[in-house]
């Protein structure tokens, strides 16, 4: 029953696209489209929750569209229901945000038709039950998001970003197509049920894993294949980049989980090592890139790469090759919980960035500052997002990271030697990236919201509209609830992990005081609620005691500036200067960072100039040579266009002679 409701919602969303084109001249089209998509995703969200919490049996429907002799199979099992829940929650909040944000959208004619179709595409990917429907909705999702990225096409960078994104998306889809080709075999068993029944051999499974890792990894943003993500996400309008970062990457994770955990059969021992290596590198590189940025949305996009790394660390530990089913169940639950948490706080942060963008018209942090006085509510919601993404208690980011650490701690019993050495290293990388993430978000919040406004645009900023604020506070509240009562969410994930791995974490709600216990109480437990209550009580206790017994008088005075006459706002720390110590520690190796100071000769009043030179090594060593290679090949082949007729004839003649020679030689 729930599946039909969800499909109706998807159909409504698909119908909204042409409707938006038809009504493009009417004034209320923005409100209509976003309102309708919010309602549709809300209904579908309710259906998904009903299915997941009710632990209902998987339903499936076959529509007569698609490959003629196959039809389109759609199925809503526990895994799909969870990811559908994540997609619809993101869609709902993005549409709510867009109700307010959409007013300021200049190219709304290019955003409205594709936005609901993008949502429908994501929902269908999660429900697809055969290779054709899966890839169709996967590629349709990419096409729609490409169109959204290209909505501000007058800016050349956006056009380039859209182009890189589309080429990488096609590359990813074709890799997945090869993976499905392997699973389907030569007589075309394309439905997932047939693929599961076929029980692929170990070698086939390994190849499918590699192809899925490349295909889904490129859409999710694993490091060597992440280059499009920081280009495309900032180029899209804010509510779309929130969806792309927070939700589309999760649909890519769903693709990986569905192919590798569900269809690819028994995992081999080295699978987790491969995924772990990719994940560890992704986590650290993502956050190091983010630290070097001063464009707000690019920084958040790079952080998506980091959090995808964390999710894939959880997935890597979730392979059940080592017989320790509970450890795998814990790791999978940790990964899925981080999927949910990340979609919450990443969307919240992108909404905040969107609100700042509309208020000041600027994305570059170096031109912002002091927004906490002018946009207090946005600042508060953004602060909650920053604390959550930096994995600090009592919010939800810490819970999933803590579970991942517990999964890592369970691994010494693993028989595989390689894992014994790789896992502590990845544990160290995870801890390092958590600390660097906290540093990065101190920079983001401090430079953007605190301090004094660095430009007049930041000075004239005003608070955003109520819809955007509603969306932001809705997500902030969810972050807090997921941080305080993680047990509820972990129990909701139990059917998913038992479907995929056959076991799930011990029921959390039975433990006292709603704390979460990964394996056994004696081993480790964490109680979000109590820690939060303790902090609130001790904080208010201290405040009231001091205000009653000690003084509560307060007066304002100019800040201490070592006696300099006019402390202009430019003396404040900027994003690049804040990251300078960390850049000096990590940057020289990872980005070949060099600083060139050029001091004026004594007596001249020319300002000194400090230039920082950073290289994106991955782009320069992997993608630039590829583009140069294709350009070179295109140039060489281009000469074939300008031959004389005689030379073309000699081509034909050569082909004929070669074929005849082949015939003569052939037995």
């Amino acid at each position, binding site marked *: 029953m729930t599946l039909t409701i969800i499909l109706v919602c998807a159909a409504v969303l698909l119908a909204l696209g042409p409707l938006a084109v038809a009504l493009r001249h009417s004034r209320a089209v923005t409100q209509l489209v976003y309102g309708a998509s919010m309602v549709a995703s809300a209904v579908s969200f309710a259906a998904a929750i009903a299915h997941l919490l009710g632990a209902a049996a998987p339903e499936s429907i076959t529509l007569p569209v698609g490959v003629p002799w196959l039809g389109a199979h759609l199925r809503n099992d526990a895994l799909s229901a969870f990811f559908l829940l994540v997609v619809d929650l993101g869609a709902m909040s993005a549409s709510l945000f867009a109700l307010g944000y959409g007013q300021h959208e200049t190219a709304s004619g290019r955003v409205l038709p594709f936005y609901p179709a993008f949502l429908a595409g994501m929902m269908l990917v999660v429900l697809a039950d055969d290779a054709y429907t899966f890839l169709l909705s996967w590629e349709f999702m990419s096409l729609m998001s490409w169109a959204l990225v290209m909505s501000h096409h007058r800016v050349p960078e956006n056009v380039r970003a859209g182009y890189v994104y589309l080429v990488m998306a096609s590359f990813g889809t074709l890799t997945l197509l090869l993976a499905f080709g392997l699973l389907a075999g030569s007589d075309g068993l394309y439905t997932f049920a047939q693929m599961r029944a076929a029980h692929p051999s170990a070698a086939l499974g390994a190849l499918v894993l590699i192809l899925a890792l490349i295909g889904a990894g490129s859409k999710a943003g694993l490091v060597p294949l992440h280059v499009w993500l920081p280009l495309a996400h900032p180029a899209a309008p804010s509510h779309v980049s929130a969806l792309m970062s927070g939700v589309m990457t999760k649909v890519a994770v769903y693709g990986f989980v569905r192919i590798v955990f569900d269809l690819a059969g028994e995992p081999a021992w080295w699978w987790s090592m491969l995924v772990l290596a990719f994940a560890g590198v992704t986590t650290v590189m993502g956050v190091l890139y983010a630290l070097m940025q001063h464009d707000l949305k690019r920084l958040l996009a790079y952080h998506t790469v980091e959090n995808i790394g964390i999710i894939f660390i959880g997935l890597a530990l979730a392979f059940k090759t080592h017989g320790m089913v509970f450890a795998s169940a814990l790791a999978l639950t940790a990964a899925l919980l981080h999927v949910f948490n990340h979609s919450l706080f990443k969307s919240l942060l992108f909404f905040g960035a969107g609100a700042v963008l509309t208020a000041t018209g600027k994305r570059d942090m170096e031109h912002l500052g002091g927004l906490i006085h002018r946009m207090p509510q946005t600042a508060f919601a953004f602060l909650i997002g920053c604390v959550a993404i930096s994995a600090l208690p009592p919010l939800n980011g810490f819970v999933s990271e803590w579970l991942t650490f517990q999964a890592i701690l369970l691994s010494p019993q693993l028989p595989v030697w390689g894992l014994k050495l790789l896992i502590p290293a990845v544990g160290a990388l995870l801890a390092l990236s958590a600390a660097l993430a906290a540093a990065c978000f101190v920079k983001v919040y401090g430079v953007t919201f605190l301090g004094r406004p660095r430009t007049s645009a930041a000075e004239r900023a005003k608070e955003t509209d109520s819809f955007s604020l509603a969306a932001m506070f809705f997500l902030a509240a969810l972050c807090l609830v997921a941080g305080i009562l993680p047990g509820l969410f972990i129990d909701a994930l139990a059917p998913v992990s038992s479907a995929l791995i056959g076991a799930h974490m011990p029921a959390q709600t039975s433990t006292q005081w709603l704390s979460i216990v990964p394996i056994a109480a004696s081993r480790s437990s964490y109680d979000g609620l109590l820690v939060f209550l303790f902090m609130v009580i001790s904080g208010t206790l201290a405040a009231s005691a001091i205000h009653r017994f000690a003084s509560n008088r307060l007066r304002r005075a100019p800040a201490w500036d070592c006696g300099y006459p006019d402390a202009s706002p430019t003396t404040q720390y900027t994003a690049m200067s804040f990251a300078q110590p960390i850049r000096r520690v990590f940057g020289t190796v990872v980005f070949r960072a060099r600083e060139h100071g050029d001091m004026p000769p004594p007596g001249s009043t020319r300002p000194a100039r400090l230039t920082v030179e950073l290289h994106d090594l991955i782009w320069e060593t992997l993608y630039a040579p590829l583009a140069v290679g294709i350009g070179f090949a295109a140039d060489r082949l281009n000469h074939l266009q300008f031959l004389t*007729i*005689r030379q073309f004839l000699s081509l034909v003649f050569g082909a004929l002679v070669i074929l005849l020679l082949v015939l003569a030689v052939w037995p």
Partner: protein
Amino acid sequence: MSGIDFDIAHLLAGSLVLVSFLELYQDRLYSLLNIYAAHALVLAASVAWQAFIQDAPHLYITAAIALVFKAIVIPVTLHRIIVRLGIHREIENVVGVGITMLAGIGLVALSMVVMLRVTREADPLAREDLAFALAVVLLGLLMMVTRRNAVSQVVGFMSLENGLVLAATGAKGMPLVVEISVAFSILIAFIVIGIFLFRIRERFDTVDVQALDRFRGERR
């Protein structure tokens, strides 16, 4: 099919290949046209002989077309066009004559190997004919590839077409042979008219295909 008929047919087909070789050797347009006329003549003889052996009257029409149209009308018109275009004294050859001849020999050997390997139980005449026809076709193509002048390329194409007619007549009882040769004649007529009608001369001041190519689309 008694021995003598086979030998004569064999002789005529072989001589056609020989004339094709001669054409390869020529580098002056006048002599090229004369050799082509001879080429058409031999073809007409061979088709007539085939008509006699297979006592298929319609082949006589093809022989007549070959004789009248290809041996006389086309060379004369081309002759007059060359004089009008004033290119009769040009000597042009892209690849050295020696290399062209060697390539020609290679091609004949290739066609022999391909064709003889093919038909063992079919009657020998058809097999021989096809081998020679393939040789003439390949030589015609070689000529088109190694010549720079548009008219000599057309002559190459026409000798290629003669090879086809030889093959068609060699295939005993093949219907539509006449229609095909008529279609080809129209095609050749188009070419000749094409040279004249498109006033290649006035447009490009020369019929040298090299000049023609300067006006390729999307100049580099």
